[in-house]
């Protein structure tokens, strides 16, 4: 327990600590704070989009800034740090080592996040989280744009340092009696996502530097007026960010690999399939990036190559779904809050993937590119799969961190509201996209179908918002006043864990 609120530790002890449990806790609190902040921005957007005309946001530039910071925050300041949070806490335990390989570097990597977050939020850039040139070079107002670039540079370095730490801890510091093939799948998730990070992220670091020098006028990499090519940025960006989506989803799937067997009271159906699927996904994930660029004027052959690369990643993801369902088969499942989130997450994962296959079919991209179909699709992944997996794991891990149980009824209500809201918002957005509504627009003409669907979507968003408010109350209240939990078996499932969740924190 690193956060026992009734016997508080001095705050500077946690802040200056290099112990993996404390760094994990710092990552967790930071990421959850940004989750609520980014989510609040989404609610602002949905109020404005409730119907045509001005509802709340007086001008389009403010709207554009809000959606840019919404996306940037939730990807870089919530999902990635929350994965790091649980990774830092659990990977040393899973490989039976005393801490991460480089504890001080670990703390440094965490402490890069608050200043980067400050840069992004104080700047509030408007050029979407992609920052495509030539808009980001010649038209996006500074200093917001430059602050965003610096913020992301810092976050990229933090990611790479974290990834190095995970890879070295797992590959070099693991206990000699533990073969890699017996390592828990959650550790495999961190290994594969860290390896992807190390290969993919430096490309974006280069692209960011080039974007900055372009903005300063010192270079013309992406500016045709100086002999450059804006499409080059898109290739560099998506070469990083397609594998990045796997970096985002793999830890969440890893969380589900902890939750499903635990609550089904039987081991995972096939450990080796899980390892194979993670590894295959990590490799094949690099072959599909330009499916984001189908409308940019690529040739038929190029598009075909990337379509094949995209479709090739589907069997690997599908193997995880099979593994989870086969694990539940024959089990005796206790449907506590964590596994409800995991099951909901898997159901939405499938829908997200199915929509993705449709996008991958080249001609269909002409229908769906940059419409709300895409928004619905990727949100089913980031919200439906990743957030559901992460929040489920937050509930699961709550007793180990705080020594107390969260309120189960509130947890289940949070799940139901989130699931209903997610379906209302993101499934409807698919249909809205089919009707042609572009994304990233501040206002829209009063086309009846668009208006009706936007109303449904905004209502769904507020349902999710209410669930999140309940979550916040549950987290805070239960940390301080929740029922003390049995640390050996907080969910009363019976049985022992195959590795102890309780780490020994030297200051505690």
């Amino acid at each position, binding site marked *: 327990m690193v956060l026992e609120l009734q016997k508080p530790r001095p705050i500077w002890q946690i802040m200056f600590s290099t112990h993996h449990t404390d760094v994990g806790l710092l990552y967790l609190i930071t990421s959850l704070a940004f989750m609520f902040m980014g989510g609040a921005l989404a609610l602002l957007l949905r109020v404005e989009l409730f119907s045509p005309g001005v509802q709340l946001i007086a001008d389009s530039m403010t709207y554009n800034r809000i959606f840019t910071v919404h996306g940037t925050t939730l990807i870089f300041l919530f999902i990635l740090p929350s994965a790091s949070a649980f990774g830092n806490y659990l990977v040393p335990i899973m490989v039976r080592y005393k801490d991460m390989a480089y504890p001080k570097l670990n703390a440094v990597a965490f402490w890069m996040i608050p200043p980067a977050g400050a840069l992004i939020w104080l700047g509030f850039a408007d050029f979407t989280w992609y920052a495509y040139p030539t808009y980001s070079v010649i038209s996006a107002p500074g200093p917001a744009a430059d602050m965003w670039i610096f913020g992301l540079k810092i976050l990229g370095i933090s990611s790479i340092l974290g990834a190095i730490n995970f890879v070295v801890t797992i590959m070099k510091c693991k206990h000699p009696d533990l073969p890699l093939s017996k390592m828990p799948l959650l550790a495999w998730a961190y290994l594969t996502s860290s390896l992807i990070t190390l290969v993919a992220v430096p490309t974006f670091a280069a692209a960011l530097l080039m974007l900055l020098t372009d903005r300063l006028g010192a270079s013309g990499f992406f500016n045709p007026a100086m002999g450059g090519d804006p499409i080059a940025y898109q290739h560099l960006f998506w070469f990083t960010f397609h594998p990045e989506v796997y970096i985002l989803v793999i830890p969440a799937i890893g969380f589900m690999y902890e939750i499903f*067997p*635990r609550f*089904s*009271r*039987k*081991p995972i159906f096939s450990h080796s399939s899980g390892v194979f699927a993670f590894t295959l996904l990590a490799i094949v994930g690099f072959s599909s990036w330009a499916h984001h660029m189908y409308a940019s004027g690529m040739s038929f052959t190029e598009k075909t190559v990337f379509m094949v690369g995209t479709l090739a990643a589907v069997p690997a993801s599908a193997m995880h*779904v099979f593994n989870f*369902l086969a694990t*539940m*088969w*024959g*089990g*005796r*499942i*206790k*449907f506590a809050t964590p596994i409800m989130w995991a*099951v909901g997450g*898997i*159901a939405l994962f*499938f*829908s997200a993937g*199915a*929509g993705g*296959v*449709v996008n991958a*079919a080249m*001609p*269909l991209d*002409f*229908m769906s590119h940059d419409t709300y179909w895409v928004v619905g699709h990727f949100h089913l992944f980031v919200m439906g799969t990743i957030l559901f997996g992460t929040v489920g794991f937050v509930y699961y891990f709550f007793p180990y961190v705080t020594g107390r149980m969260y309120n189960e009824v509130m947890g289940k209500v949070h799940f139901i509201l989130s699931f209903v809201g997610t379906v209302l918002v993101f499934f409807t957005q698919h249909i809205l996209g089919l009707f042609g509504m572009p994304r990233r627009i501040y206002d829209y003409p009063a086309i009846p179908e668009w208006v009706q669907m936007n109303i449904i979507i905004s209502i769904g968003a507020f349902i999710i918002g209410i669930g999140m408010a309940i979550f916040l109350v549950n987290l805070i209240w239960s940390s301080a006043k929740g029922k003390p939990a049995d640390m050996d078996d907080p969910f009363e499932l*019976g*049985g*022992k864990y*195959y590795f102890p969740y309780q780490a020994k924190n030297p200051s505690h």
Partner: protein
Amino acid sequence: MKVIIGFGLVLALLIVLPSVQNVMAAGDTPGEYLDRKELIWGLFYRLMIVAFTVGTVVSGMIVWLVLRFRESNPKAKPTSYEAEGNW
């Protein structure tokens, strides 16, 4: 493995060949131009049928699993791993 690849190839060919005849017949004269919208949306509806069929199977499977193997189901019995106390 060969069976799977062969099956996939056969399936692909069975789909492609009838459509190839389509393009051989399509002309470049007014009135015979291919309708882009019809082709794209036709593909969309075909894929939606596949997606919803698979979706129904997967979702149905999840619902069944959740109901059948929940611990409050009258037919629920402990797993063999519970006896050992280790899973």
